[in-house]
């Protein structure tokens, strides 16, 4: 039986099917073969589409909030890993007072992530202490915050008005004390500009030798020269130039003649050519009487 469905007519022999493109398909193909247009379609359009979608998505407030939250969560997840946790703080090179002071100033609650630590600010905080010459702040492996302090060592007590200040060898004030007895071992200096000549003062103290137990302190006079105060209100006035040599002369005199054991009030060495002594009133009277008796 003959099929009722349409059958394609057999191709006439010798004729290849060769349909002509329509005008529009021809133009379309030519357009697609244009290099600039091809680049536009292959790169430009996808990029444009992605940018458009991204912009549309980001303009939504909720999406933006969600994005921020996601980023924050991701960040926290990384930062809170145990590898990054700082569990404690150790302070090296500081005395107990300074350690307490640093602990109070730093005010950190452990554990915290090392990403939350502002080491530079921490360093500045610690370095602001007068007693700290230098400080190295770092997070050590194992999660310890290490604050290595190079503390200033006080070498003298400086009486400034009513205050007793501690100063180190560079003349920097490292702290205050209430009583002279707290730092009895340190020499006392006083007067304006005393801390600027601290080296000289220390050298003078070192040169006192046998009178060391009797020395009360050094007073800077007129910001240019030193007076050495001994007990019994004895005073050695030292010159501006070369005070050490002058002091050595006084010490030598004391060792030979027990000068300072005598009733001398002031040994004035300001003029090296003419050392002068002032005796106390009774001594002068005795001296006069002895002279009269002769």
């Amino acid at each position: 039986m003959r099929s009722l469905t349409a059958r394609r007519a057999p191709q006439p022999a010798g004729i290849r099917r060769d349909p002509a493109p329509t005008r529009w398909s021809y133009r379309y193909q030519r357009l697609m073969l244009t290099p600039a247009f091809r680049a536009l379609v292959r790169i430009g359009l996808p990029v444009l589409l992605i940018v458009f979608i991204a912009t549309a998505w980001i303009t939504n407030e909720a999406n933006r909030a969600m994005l921020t939250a996601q980023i924050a969560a991701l960040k926290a997840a990384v930062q809170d890993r145990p590898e990054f946790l700082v569990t404690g703080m150790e302070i090296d090179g500081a005395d107990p007072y300074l350690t307490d002071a640093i602990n109070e100033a730093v005010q950190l609650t452990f554990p915290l992530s090392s990403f939350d630590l502002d080491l530079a600010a921490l360093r500045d905080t610690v370095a602001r202490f007068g007693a700290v010459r230098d400080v190295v702040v770092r997070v050590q492996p194992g999660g310890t915050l290490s604050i290595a302090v190079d503390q200033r060592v006080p070498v003298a007590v400086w009486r400034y008005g009513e205050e007793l200040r501690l100063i180190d060898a560079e003349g920097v004030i490292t702290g205050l004390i209430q009583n002279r007895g707290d730092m009895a071992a340190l020499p006392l200096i006083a007067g304006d500009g005393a801390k600027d000549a601290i080296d000289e003062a220390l050298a003078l103290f070192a040169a006192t030798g046998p009178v060391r137990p009797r020395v009360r302190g050094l007073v800077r006079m007129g910001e240019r020269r030193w007076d050495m105060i001994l007990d019994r209100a004895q005073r050695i006035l030292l010159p501006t130039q070369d005070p050490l040599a002058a002091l050595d002369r006084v010490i030598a005199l004391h060792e030979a003649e027990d000068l300072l054991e005598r009733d001398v009030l002031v040994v004035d060495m300001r003029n090296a050519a003419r050392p002068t002594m002032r005796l106390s009133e009774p001594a002068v009277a005795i001296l006069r009487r002895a002279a009269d008796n002769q």
Partner: protein
Amino acid sequence: MRKVAMQRGVIAILDVGTSKIACLVLRFDGPERFTTVDGVGPMAGQSSFRVIGAATTRSRGVRFGEVDAMAETERAIRTAVQSAQKMAKVRVDHVIACLSGARPRSYGLDGEVDVHGAVVTDQDIGRVLAACDVPDYGAGREVLHAQPVNFALDHRSGMADPRGQTGARLTTDMHLLTVDASAIENLLYCIKRCDLELAGLASSAYVSGISALVEDEQELGAACIDMGGGATGISVFIRKHMIYADSVRMGGDHVTSDISMGLQVPLATAERIKTLHGGIMATGMDDREMIEIGGTTGDWELDRRTASRAELIGIMRPRVEEILEEVRLRLDAAGFEHLPSQKIVLTGGGSQIPGLDALASKILGQQVRLGRPLRVQGLPQAATGPAFAAAVGLTLFAAHPQDEWWDFEIPAERHAGRSFKRAVKWFKDNW
């Protein structure tokens, strides 16, 4: 326009024939890789291009090598160009076309001028070309080629390039080829409808000659017979110049229609029978070789017909003879027998009929050979047959065109009072 296309680097070749439309896409690679050295020419510019796309399509709407149905032709051109572009993967904007019909007519022109100054300059060449008295080739016809074929300076003739030589009187011979203007206009319109720009136009007889004749044939004198579907082109070459071209308005399609009428078969079947079993010289064997004619009418008697090959040859031979006789007449009229060498090269799709060379040597003379086009770089194997002689010749024409009249500067006296136009032309030429 051709220069613009060359700068773009890609140009299409369009052979609008009666039986097929071929499109080749050429890519020019800038300077030629083979430079001219002693004794070796630049290979006629062949080395500078490469065929990167090729396509053919069955021609529709072309008869006798002329556009007959515009829309059909346009569609066929579109098909060919599109598939060639697709193969080349590049868009083509410029096209060089050739057409086989359009009743070409050759004229020999000569001009004569006194040389200004001591030596011949470009200006003198332009003047002598302008001095040729153009014949009245009739209204509705256009000049397709106008090539100077010979220069003579005083008593010396046969110069290819007289520039720089001393002499007093310069004469030239020029070959002018005119075709029907309407045929060109129709073709131009079809190409324009395909969004293409025409970068050049050539006669297919001429370009077949370029590709099918070897160099010494072109030099010594030869005729190229391009047996196409609807028209048979004749071009005569000597000294590497075409001196005569004509076209016989008969071709392979007429053979096919004869078979169709003689065997009572459709044209498509006739074409198949012609290409598979066709021949010219009958032998005793051919009487016994029966060809299934076939058919789709549903009538058993009709569909099972057979014809002997001798019958087929009997149908084909008179028509081929007629074509060759006509060619003979045209060649005689052109004075072909006066050429020093009378080589005849048969090419085109029609030249593939077995036994054609034997028949042609009886009619046209002893020196007949079958010609195939030159091999050019990148040409697909399928496009190397004689049917593509015109297309391949057109690629050579595109790469290495011969000087035409309008390539030389028009002499200044012709410009009198048109200095503004000259200025505009100068700007156009230089920018």
